[in-house]
């Protein structure tokens, strides 16, 4: 009667599960963001359009001041008309189309800009000073800013490099390079290329900032979680298992799956039963901190948690906030550097102090050891966060910061 049956084989051997992909709202929010569509980049794109328009006005003024120099004004007038029409239509389309720009639209946009550059070059070719007289073709480089939030960075950089190449070839073919002309050529090429390069760089930084902040804010919600929680991932997992069981049973009930079951279906039923049983028995054993670390992209990679007594669950919201933001600050400072910092968090075991603590509170020792964080590079904000948790002492271990914190918490037996 005590024979171990197939439904009760242990599934988890030790500790940590492989992190499943973020679920639900998290996934819905992060994915479009990873593709680079939303969250503030719209406003940033609008700013890029404003820059583009202001630069066009400046270019137009330059063009008018050169009016007498052109041997034939027709092509350059055409270039400017085409450029202004292109950016006007592009701004209208982008403000109505929203956050997507199909590849073919981008291709048409690039073709139009190429037309602008060709017409401008045609007009100034005989002048023998490309850098000095280029106007619409330089503006075309700024025109690329219009789509900086909508297309991948490398696509913009490719277009921008092509423009640079066109300038260099044209300059080499037409302009005698002397000390008098060279600075102008250099500045002109830089002016045509720099906007999109800087734009791509800024946007990348902006997206990274938004993602980091989003990750932090999402994880922040764990500070108000109960002492033990199922977590977003496990909760969805249970719903998924219930649904799978429902579908299987329904298929059997309606006769879609014939009885007796094929070995494949039987093994599906067996593994469903095993997973479901373990989920139900396992219950709520993980603390908010475990969920915070596994759900976060940033913390999940850098933080290792040891909390055998699940003591993290006893911390009050202020202490949780301090711990989470302290660890966050330690890790996020180095998220992109070559020597990423890691954090080892050890909570407990409970100290057996003879010290009388007021109001039946108990002391939970927390040790934070880090790597790649010298004591003199610690952000002051980290001390503020750690100070919220309780008394702490800092030292150096293996050339990196170590914190010993004593958190006073309410005795769970009194609750």
């Amino acid at each position: 009667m005590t024979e171990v049956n197939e439904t009760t084989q242990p599934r988890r051997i030790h500790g940590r599960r492989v992190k499943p992909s973020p679920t639900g709202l998290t996934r819905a929010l992060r994915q479009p963001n990873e593709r680079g569509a939303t969250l503030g980049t719209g406003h940033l794109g609008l700013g890029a359009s404003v820059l583009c328009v202001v630069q066009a006005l400046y270019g137009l003024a330059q063009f008018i001041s050169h009016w007498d120099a052109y041997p034939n004004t027709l092509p350059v007038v055409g270039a400017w008309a085409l450029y202004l029409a292109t950016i006007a239509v592009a701004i209208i389309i982008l403000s109505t189309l929203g956050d997507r720009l199909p590849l073919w639209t981008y291709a048409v946009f690039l073709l139009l800009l190429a037309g602008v550059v060709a017409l401008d070059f045609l007009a100034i070719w005989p002048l023998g000073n490309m850098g000095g007289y280029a106007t619409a073709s330089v503006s075309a480089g700024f025109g690329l800013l219009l789509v900086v939030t909508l297309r991948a960075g490398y696509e913009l950089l490719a277009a921008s490099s092509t423009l640079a190449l066109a300038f260099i070839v044209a300059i080499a073919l037409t302009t005698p390079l002397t000390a008098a002309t060279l600075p102008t050529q250099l500045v002109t090429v830089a002016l045509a290329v720099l906007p999109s390069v800087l734009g791509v760089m800024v946007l990348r930084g902006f997206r990274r900032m938004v993602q980091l902040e989003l990750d932090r804010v999402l994880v922040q919600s764990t500070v108000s979680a109960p002492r033990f929680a199922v977590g977003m991932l496990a909760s969805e997992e249970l719903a998924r298992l219930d649904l799978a069981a429902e579908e299987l049973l329904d298929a059997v009930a309606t006769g879609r799956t014939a009885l007796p079951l094929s070995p494949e279906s039987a093994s599906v039923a067996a593994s469903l039963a095993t997973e479901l049983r373990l989920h139900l028995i396992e219950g709520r054993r993980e603390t908010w901190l475990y969920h915070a670390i596994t759900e976060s992209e940033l913390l999940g990679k850098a933080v290792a948690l040891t909390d055998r007594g699940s003591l993290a669950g006893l911390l009050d919201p202020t202490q949780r906030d301090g711990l989470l933001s302290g660890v966050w600050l330690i890790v996020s400072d180095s998220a992109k550097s070559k020597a990423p910092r890691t954090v080892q968090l050890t909570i407990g075991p409970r100290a057996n102090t003879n010290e009388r603590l007021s109001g039946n509170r108990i002391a939970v020792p927390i040790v934070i050891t880090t790597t790649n964080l010298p004591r003199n590079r610690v952000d002051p904000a980290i001390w503020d966060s750690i100070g919220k948790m309780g008394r702490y002492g800092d030292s150096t271990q293996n050339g990196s910061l170590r914190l010993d914190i004593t958190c006073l918490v309410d005795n769970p037996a009194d609750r």
Partner: protein
Amino acid sequence: MVDTSLLRNVQTSRDMEPIAKERDRLLHRTARALGVTGAALSLVSVALPGVVPLPVFLTSLPLFLVFIGSLVMVGRSPWRRWVVLGVFCGVGALAVLAGQIRTPDDAVALVPLAAAGIAGLSLAVAPTVAWLALFAIAAAASVILVQLASAGDALLSAATVSVIAGWTLTALGGYWLAASVPRASRRIYSIGKAHRAERHASETEAQRRQSARLLHDTVLATLTLLAHSGVGVAPAAMQQQAGDDARLLRQLRLGATPTPQSSGSYNLEPVEETVLGTTLESVKQRFGRIGLEVTWHGTGQVLLPSDVLDAFLLSLAECLENVRRHSGVTQADVTITDDATTVRAMVTDSGIGFDLAGIDEDKLGFKESVVARLREVGGNARLFSSQGSGTTVVLEVPK
């Protein structure tokens, strides 16, 4: 409590927020990229032979280098005076060079330093009155110096207009970038709020699903049967049972908390205490359908708290399932007795039995499914058996 403190932080001291730090980092990087590019372009241009005399170039060189160095240090060091030093060296380099340039063409060499280099540095600081004043002076100085170098008759030379345009574009871009951050941050916070609500909802949902224990017990029993391909059970009975369970799961999914109380009809009301008798009937019928005849003795009506009842019924069903699978007989006896504090069930079969010493009682199946569940509600289970003389299990739960 957490909500309001978070909100207060957002409203009053956004500069303390991590996103402000990230914003500053982004602005510093942009300043560095723009400034260093501008300074390097100018440096290369004036280094060309014939633009300025060599001694003048050599005089300006250290100023260029300190300027670039201060850009590199901005953001890395909290010392704000790097910015001041940078502005002075940048304007100084312009002044040294502008004194020696007398053609509009060569004046262009100064434009990158004036329009991108010094202007770029302005991105690295907060728009306070003092900084705005400093950079207004720097902008005016760079415009005047470039105009001087152009030495033309025109009111404003082409190079000077470029410098004005460069400052305008840089200021506009920097302002817009900084202004985009609070917008994004507001949206991120509202997402955070939604996420917190979702976390609580999902916690409640998980709790609801987990507490639907009786339902999951019958689902698990059915799945276990199916794992054996449903062999030994009449297909019609199997189908009916699967249909019942699928319906219960559907109700759970749609938001109800179904508690199977007797076969055929389900009570969807949450109840504090449940009568044992009617519930036992459903267990009996379930095993009847799958080929185990259960004879019931003793108390029919006992009131139990619903979590105790769930644990009790699950354990009972597990025991009967083990009898069905391993005992080799098709009959079992269940005797329910109760006294003032305890309800007791004795499950007996006259099957093949087994040697208790030969099998570890701690094996996962019995321990987790029966003992653990009973202990959770303050009960216990004991097992008696020997080879060839059947098995008896005694389950106890407190009233």
